[in-house]
């Protein structure tokens, strides 16, 4: 298929901002809202997604020529699910506290549109090195977004970021930030601001 020689650097950077999976492409919203009640949870989920996406993209890209088109979706799903289970088990064994905070959202990475989306749109159609870079870019973009969202919610919701007390002791936390409404509102504002910044840049 026709493709301009996009530089590897550009491949990487696009996931961070221009095609940020959450703020621009509106993918992977479920875990974004669910685990960003604190910065550390956002970071942990991000790392789990980075691992899953990079591994899946690598493997899928490596075997892309052997997978018949008709069965590609089930194959992608099996591969992704395997890596997600590996992540889940690893967390449960070596980082049990994180495993408990992230709860059932680690298995839900399987249906995270970002992961499946990248396999379909990119990894299955590109050589390995590009696939890895794309995966890294997208998942790091995702992670950064989660950290920002998580930090905002944690800061306003409990006065801390990464459990470091930032707000003065007299600050009355906005409980709503740790709860679902706060998540929706903050994300909505972030996407709105992202739209505004993008428009400004043009």
């Amino acid at each position, binding site marked *: 298929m026709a493709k301009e020689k996009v530089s590897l650097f550009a491949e990487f950077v696009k996931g961070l901002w221009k095609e940020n999976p959450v703020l621009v492409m509106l993918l992977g919203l479920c875990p974004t809202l669910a685990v960003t009640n604190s910065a550390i949870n956002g970071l942990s989920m991000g790392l789990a997604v980075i691992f899953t996406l990079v591994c899946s993209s690598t493997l899928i890209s490596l075997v892309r020529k052997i997978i*018949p088109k008709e069965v590609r979706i089930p194959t992608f799903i099996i591969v992704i699910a395997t890596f997600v289970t590996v992540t889940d*088990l690893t967390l449960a064994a070596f980082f049990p506290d994180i495993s408990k905070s992230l709860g059932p959202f680690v298995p839900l990475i399987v249906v995270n549109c970002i992961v499946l989306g990248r396999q379909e749109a990119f990894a299955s159609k590109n050589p390995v090195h590009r696939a890895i870079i794309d995966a890294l870019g997208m998942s790091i973009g995702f992670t950064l977004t989660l950290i920002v969202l998580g930090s905002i919610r944690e800061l306003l919701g409990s006065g801390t970021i990464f459990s470091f007390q930032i707000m003065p002791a007299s600050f009355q*936390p906005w409980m709503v930030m740790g709860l679902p409404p706060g998540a929706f509102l903050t994300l909505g504002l972030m996407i709105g601001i992202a739209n505004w910044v993008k428009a400004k840049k043009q």
Partner: protein
Amino acid sequence: MNKSAKMVIVLTATAILSGGVLAYFDLFTSPIIAAYQSNELKNAIGVVLPGIISYDEKVINDTQFYLGKNKDGGLIGVAFLAEGNGFQSKIKILVGMNPEFTKIQRLKILQQAETPGLGTKIENDLTNKSDKFWFLNQFKDLKVGTGITYVKNKKPSQEGEIQAITGATISSKSVVNILNDTIDKSRKAFFAEFSGNCVNKDQKGEIKNEIYKVIPGSVSCDKEIINDTKFYLGKNKKGDLVGVAFIAEGYGFESKIKMLVGIDPEFKKILRLKILQQAETPEIGTKIEDDSTNISDRFWFMNQFKNLEVDSGITYILNKKPSKAGEIQAITGATISSELIVDILNSTIKTNREIFLSKVKSIRNREVK
């Protein structure tokens, strides 16, 4: 290669590889996960049974108990798991109680996934600046004799009462219900170690027959352990409790004396007495069990205790026939043996009366509710 075949092969290969990788990972991580969970349990037991040095795991009547011991090996607490449904998730609580099962020492929530910010307050409440763990702390040293109750929107005022969390009534109620049900079941399991079966492992059925002899009219026997003391409950054909038996032992003049005491359910009257073991001075002290010098009644000494009223204690008299309630005649020439028997009986009956009757009272109180 034929297209369909390729599809099948690719899918099957993927599935097998996936299964293989996951099986390997599972093998590798599951011992670690299991070790972590048992460590968590160990720490939790230390939290709910303060002051213990070690604990034993024991399954009694299909229930897993953790018996906490102090440095002398004495039992100072019993822990067990209580679980049930909360508002939206399974709640698992480790309960630490005193060995009499009358008081909760501490609680620890092992697992819950209630509504964040509301139901989760049962585990920690960030809106309470002075005490995040106020809900659980209410259960510290809580007397649970007649069951735990809860009140809403005001401070608890009675024994066994706690305050529910505003806006999380169901979660709070669930915790209380889980505790009440499980404490009840665990108490019954713990105290009824070999209920319905009075055969002592080392005496192989001997005890049962002896019990029927010291509790006249009994046809069945249940064993109950209260406060580490074994009570044998003798029931008649209808299932009514007609007597309680227990072992009384202590030092005689020359040997350890072991007796089986059959007493009425109110602990007011000895029904029968039987000596299980003694090695007192032959022909003198041994008369407590068998006095061959008394032609009409060799077992006269023991027979004195038949239906003897003991609620004000047993007394003895020398060289005279007994004239008062609760009085018996000591054996001439074997005063000390006789005296010691009376002492052993008095102290054991008094102790066991308290233990047994307080348990009966607590059961009666709960049923009255």
